[in-house]
């Protein structure tokens, strides 16, 4: 697997607070990678480290084959970045901002920039201060895409957008990512965004990475089985590899599986049982399961 981003053992502390603890994962090239976690999980810190804007206390980050701490400028030339807050100069007109932005990117494509502005219905003569939050996010995406980046990094791009703007933004992002073939790495706490466009997912909670897998693989393997055995459960069955948790549920058991689902299910089928069924798991349940917040009702 060719990697667009590789993070190895990254830790970051702000004062006494450990914000990232031994975070390691890789983002495959060409993937749309959803980096999911509740607010304060460490997503923005991780993204800032990836872009070389923050120094990790330990560990290393490689982006498109470049060391993010040693070659941050070269790296940022290849990456399109959309921040959570679009802090552009409010007094600039869109065309002025584009001219300013373009001067830092040797691969800037003016025709593509104009095309993207048209797609988003953004008028070049409008001042940044006159744009709504949704329009600013779209302007951010325009600036990030117009220099034809190999990697697009978006930090909570849909946060604070209403459903209409969110849908519009995600559609544009998916379309542009597909057309350009760029790797997309985006953080969010909105699970429907991930389900809509991501093909990989990483869940981070309290600075620790809980899972990294292809989304379909996670949804297929991360399931709950409810089983009521005839008599005692067979020895070792409930400790099979891939079983994440086992809970008593009246006469039966609720078995949370995170891997090897087919093998585990077949083993359970062979054991004498009264009831054997799969409990429906959506992404929200999976997320709550990994963040240990199940039962709170909050994602």
């Amino acid at each position, binding site marked *: 697997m060719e990697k667009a981003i590789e993070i190895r053992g990254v830790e970051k502390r702000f004062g006494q607070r450990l914000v990232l603890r031994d975070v390691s994962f890789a983002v495959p090239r060409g993937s749309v990678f959803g980096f999911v976690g509740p607010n304060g999980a460490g997503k923005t810190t991780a993204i800032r480290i990836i*872009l070389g804007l923050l120094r990790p206390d330990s560990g290393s980050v490689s982006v498109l084959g470049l060391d993010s701490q040693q070659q941050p400028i070269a790296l940022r030339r290849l990456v399109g970045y959309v921040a959570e807050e679009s802090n552009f100069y409010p007094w600039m007109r869109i065309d002025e901002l584009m001219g300013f932005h373009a001067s830092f990117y040797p691969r800037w494509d003016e025709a593509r920039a104009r095309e993207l502005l048209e797609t988003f219905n953004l008028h070049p003569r409008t001042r940044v201060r006159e744009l709504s939050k949704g329009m600013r996010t779209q302007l951010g995406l325009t600036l990030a895409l117009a220099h034809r980046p190999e990697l697009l990094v978006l930090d909570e791009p849909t946060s604070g957008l209403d459903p209409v703007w969110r849908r519009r933004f995600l559609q544009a992002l998916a379309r542009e990512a597909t057309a350009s073939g760029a790797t997309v790495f985006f953080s969010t706490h909105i699970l429907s965004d991930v389900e809509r466009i991501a093909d990989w997912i990483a869940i981070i909670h309290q600075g620790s990475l809980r899972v990294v897998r292809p989304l379909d693989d996670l949804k297929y393997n991360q399931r709950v089985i409810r089983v009521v055995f005839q008599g005692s459960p067979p020895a070792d069955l409930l400790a099979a590899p891939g079983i994440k948790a086992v809970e008593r549920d009246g006469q039966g058991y609720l078995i949370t599986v995170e891997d090897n689902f087919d093998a585990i299910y077949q083993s359970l089928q062979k054991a004498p049982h009264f009831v054997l069924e799969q409990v429906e798991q959506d992404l929200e349940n999976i997320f709550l399961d990994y963040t240990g917040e199940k039962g709170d009702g909050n994602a």
Partner: protein
Amino acid sequence: MLKLIGKELREQRWTIVIGVALFSAVGILTALSYGMLIRHGENVAQFLPPGLAEQFAILLEDYTYYVWSQWHPKNLLQMGVILALILSAPAIAGEVNRGTIKYLNSLPISPGAIILGKAAAGSAVLTATVWISTMALLIAGSAAYPGLNWARLLAATALTNVGLLAVYALGLVFSALGSDPVKAGVLAAAVLLVWSAAGLHAGTAFLSPFWHMKGAGLFAGEGSFPWGSLLLLAALAAAAFLAAGRILARRQL
């Protein structure tokens, strides 16, 4: 880099216009005030104690000396310090305060290059204001009274200019340290005020940057150009610019 300098100049365009207009007006008034003192000199001198009256007479004897004494160590230096701090204090702290530093930092540009761009724009504004207003003073002075020694006054302007760049650079250090432009300006001004106290005593005057900025050596003794002062002020400016760059790089904004 050029676009960054262009952005800075655009943001400071009103400071440039107001600064040049104000400095030039004060420069012209300084040059023309000589005539008024010549006309009323005797009336003024009779109210002065003997020591001061002597100095007043010396001042009126040489127009070049008069212009220098009223412009370089007084108006230009004092207004220049205020302008330097007005330009430098918001340079980084203002970007942090508005949140735009996050956008600027996310671009493929190093913190050192950001400081360089800002320093280039700020220095250009400061230098243009100093020289345009001094030229206005010299033209007005030469038109009104003959015999003005341009060479000496221009040499003194070079010293004051480099000194003001050092003041600007010091302001930039405080700007890179904080997120409040007003605090950055006040702190830089406080440091300069304490530093200037060295100039109150003849034995320690050389420790004050303002003493070096005045170019008094040009008008005393043989009147040679104080290269030592120029190099010292230039080194001070360079060191402060470097420090500002390092501080910004370490801040991880």
